């Protein structure tokens, strides 16, 4: 068993760390404060291939793997949670299901544009009445000659306002529950499709989270992703992969908070010495680092298993559960160790704490992860 990174992975980590530090970190506070989608960062990421890391070269991607992708989301999130989730949703929730379930025509049409970052991708499953209960879909797709007519809406869609292509789910047969859901690929300018209200969120404020609205939206049958009625399986499989991305985001947030806190406790003096000299500080840091490193092992194991084409859904669930709860705990401690300053926006840890909360909720809540993990134990 070898826990070390390969030379290629080390070089990749060095590049992505430099990029995050020099291009992403300087904008993080502003993106949060102004609730602004960092489109200029996306353009820079596109230029060097970050928007298509695990996409094969034949489809215009970088030809990397899921481990590299998870490392990228981690490093980006360590300085900006918003940027991490933009890449994660784009890659795991849009490009990945098209790569996995798309026809050759669909792959040729969409993947080069997504992988090059010319187009941004998004994913629409959640509805006002279908969150964890994804089977409660009310959006419908009714066959009409060569088309499907889509009606309904999706909420909490990451990248929504800035995306060019969306993987969405709709009921093609309401009587069949989960077996009546079908996946579709929809482009931004499809007639009858529009973007609704933008959410005002606690954290990841720059990620442009909006509603998708379908009003007699006409979609050619060729835009069906996978087979008729197989949408629920596609959604669940996609979310398995997405969880690696979100676990990596949570891991990055935790690491970012540790980096900031280590710097701060060495500088901050109370009672005549740096607060790093106090054993409480030292013990808190030790716990923060241990849990974060454990999260990293889980994330990398899940990504590795996906790369090895092994079954990884439980690994991804464990990685996401543990990394998300660790991110929440670590960022909370980071704020505490910063004291009053930590509660202000002068320091980035309060933003990291707000950003961390969502990792326990989206792409399957922590409760859902526990269901996945225990169901596998008890089957």
């Amino acid at each position: 068993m070898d826990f070390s990174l390969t030379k290629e992975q080390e070089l990749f980590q060095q590049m992505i760390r430099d990029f995050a530090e020099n291009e992403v970190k300087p904008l993080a506070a502003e993106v949060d404060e102004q609730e602004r989608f960092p489109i200029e960062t996306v353009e820079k990421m596109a230029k060097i291939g970050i928007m298509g890391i695990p996409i094969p070269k034949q489809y215009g991607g970088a030809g990397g793997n899921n481990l590299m992708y998870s490392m990228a989301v981690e490093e980006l999130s360590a300085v900006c949670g918003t940027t991490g989730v933009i890449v994660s949703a784009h890659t795991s929730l849009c490009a990945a299901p098209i790569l996995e379930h798309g026809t050759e025509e669909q792959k040729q049409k969409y993947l080069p544009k997504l992988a090059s970052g010319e187009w941004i991708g998004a994913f629409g499953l959640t509805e006002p009445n279908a969150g964890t209960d994804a089977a409660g879909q009310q959006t419908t797709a009714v066959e009409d000659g060569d088309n499907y007519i889509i009606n309904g809406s999706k909420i909490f869609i990451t990248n929504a306002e800035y995306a060019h292509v969306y993987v969405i789910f709709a009921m093609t047969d309401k009587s069949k529950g989960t077996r009546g859901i079908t996946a579709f690929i929809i482009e931004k300018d499809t007639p009858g499709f529009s973007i609704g209200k933008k959410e005002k969120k606690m954290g990841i404020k720059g990620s442009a989270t909006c509603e998708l609205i379908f009003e007699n939206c006409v979609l050619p049958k060729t835009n069906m992703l996978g087979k008729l009625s197989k949408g629920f399986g596609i959604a669940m499989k996609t979310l398995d992969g997405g969880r690696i991305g979100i676990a990596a985001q949570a891991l990055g947030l935790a690491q970012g908070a540790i980096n900031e806190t280590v710097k701060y406790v060495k500088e901050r003096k109370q009672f005549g010495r740096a607060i790093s000299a106090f054993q409480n500080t030292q013990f808190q840091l030790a716990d923060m680092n241990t849990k974060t490193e454990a999260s990293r092992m889980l994330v990398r194991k899940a990504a590795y298993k996906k790369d090895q084409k092994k079954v990884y859904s439980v690994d991804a669930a464990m990685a996401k559960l543990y990394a998300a709860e660790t991110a929440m705990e670590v960022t909370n401690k980071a704020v505490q160790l910063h004291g009053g300053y930590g509660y202000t926006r002068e320091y980035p840890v309060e933003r990291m704490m707000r950003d961390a909360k969502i990792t326990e909720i989206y792409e399957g809540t922590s409760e859902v992860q526990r269901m996945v993990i225990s169901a596998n134990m008890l089957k």
Partner: protein
Amino acid sequence: MKIVVCIKQVPDTTEIKIDPKTGTLIREGVPSIINPDDKGGLEMALQLKEEKGAHITVITMGPPQADLILREAFAMGADRAIHLTDRKFAGADTLATSYALAGALKKLDFDLLITGRQAIDGDTAQVGPQIAEHLDLPQVSYLEDLKFDGEKTFTMKRHIEEGYQILEVEAPCVVTVLASANNPRYMSVGGIVDAYQKEVEVWGKDQIEVDETLLGLKGSPTSVHKAFARGLKPAGELYEVDTDEAVGIIINKMKEKFIL
């Protein structure tokens, strides 16, 4: 156009710390990087490649671990990489280094040879100009910009103390480049994936045209006599006064030290 870029692996001196007890450099954990001026030179070559088309060869002389910077150069867009490495090269001063590099460069066909101005670990700024002398090629040092007319002529902007010189030089020639010439690009993700699939050519003394007695420590007419850490000076005195009073204080201080 064929371009060769010489690069060197150096410790990232911005991350070096001094051991307060021994006064020596703490090298452990200090990352190795492409020397900044050399990276500027590589970026200049990559921009020429994008504008006019070019084939870029990078070459470095150094121990086996210098392979890393050649991979980085591949990931930025270089086409070919040569690693000059041999125990016989060890301990070389600038003359022996430039001699070995020139021996390798004689085997390559190029229109433009780019080196960085100087390396942040040695700061001599000698190797680039010495290579030009060994190869008997025209050289222009301290470049901030370079344009190519697409045929034979380069227009160069050279940084000098008083300002700039604009020169026109015909290929083939040697230039040394400043890091301030540009902002080097990031390695691309796809480039990194490919970098370890590509072959770095490893050349030893037997692969190049050299006289062995002029290599390495033996071939080095200069040697480091002594290296020491400079002692820390105590904090200076600060006066917040107007100019006339300040001049008076300075004159008195200089008299105290018998400078005046």
